[in-house]
């Protein structure tokens, strides 16, 4: 069951997909990282009402599968809701996916993919 060391050793950043306030706050905490040029990639994505779902999904894929240096992916729950099918089918251990509340959308445990898995596992 052991994941090879390469699966988690270099994962040292947190990534975030969220609304402007969440991202700003988390960046202030110091999680923001931009990889050096030429392909300077940010580890955060600001989503507003104008952002398309395809863009969110693309960022989600980039953070979860393409980049190997991300240990935890934070995503606002109301944004996770927009790509729910992707979030629910995501089962890998690394990076860990964490749904976080946002200022305007209080946290609803019923919709959390991990909590639902917990419930399913224990047959509730």
């Amino acid at each position: 069951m052991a994941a090879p060391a390469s699966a988690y050793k270099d994962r040292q950043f947190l990534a975030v997909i969220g609304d402007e306030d969440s991202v700003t706050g988390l960046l202030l905490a110091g999680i923001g990282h931009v990889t050096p040029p030429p392909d300077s990639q940010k580890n955060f994505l600001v989503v507003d009402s104008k952002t398309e779902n395809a863009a969110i999904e693309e960022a989600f894929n980039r953070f979860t599968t393409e980049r190997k240096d991300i240990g935890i992916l934070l995503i606002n729950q109301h944004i996770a809701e927009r790509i729910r099918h992707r979030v629910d089918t995501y089962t890998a251990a690394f990076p860990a996916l964490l749904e976080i509340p946002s200022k305007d959308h209080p946290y609803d445990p019923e919709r959390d993919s991990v909590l639902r898995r917990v419930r399913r596992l224990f047959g509730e």
Partner: protein
Amino acid sequence: MSGATNREAVFPTRQSLGLMKSKLKGAQTGHDLLKRKNVSEVIYHYPVVQILSSHATTEITRRIDEAKRKMGRVMQIAAFSLAEVTYAVGGDIGYQVQESAKSARFRVRTKQENVSGVFLPAFESYTTDGNNDFGLTGLGKGGQQVQRCRETYARAVETLVELASLQTAFVILDEVIKVVNRRVNAIEHVIIPRTENTIKYINSELDELDREEFFRLKKVQNKKQRDTAAQDAEMRLKLAAAEKAEAASGATSSDKENEAGTGDILGESEDADVIF
């Protein structure tokens, strides 16, 4: 019959019977162990998993629920402090912050711990010293609020990292439990019945061999008896023929001798009876 199909291909010998018996025992021991590991063994070794799960299923969901709710509160406080910043600075700092983010100060270390054969991951947060992307944020006004907001958010992120550890451990545990369950089921429903069938088969074959052997011995005995009977009859015939021949040659002398002999013996025995 199922015994003919659902068993291992072995020769029905006593050696393989012994092998099968030890295999069955091993399977049963393994089954018991795995079943126990399934619920408690893994769990009691590890604090995170202790939080995650115990025998009571509601307990587990409650703990995670609780952790997530705590996260909700922490994030709310953090959001409030950000609102304070916005108010103090007098404008939105989001754009400025996003632009000035260059290198992560807050990072996580990932490690795995081996807990009775299961590797459970854990995140550990640490801050790299010496780089501060937001030195100029709030320089004009609201610097204090910005500083406070940063601290609040740093604490919030720490909570998030903890929760992520918990959650990842759960995800892996979920996987492990599934695998263990599959193994338990395979042992319970495939390996143990199969081995039992094999043992039954070997036993029946050995019994059959025993019966065959017994029957064969009986047959041999019968044959021997028949043979000896035939030999006896032959001997008797021969004896009778010889006696006849003897009787024809010297019957009188031998008869006298015989009578004297018996008389002696009888006399002696009578004496002995009198003495004792």
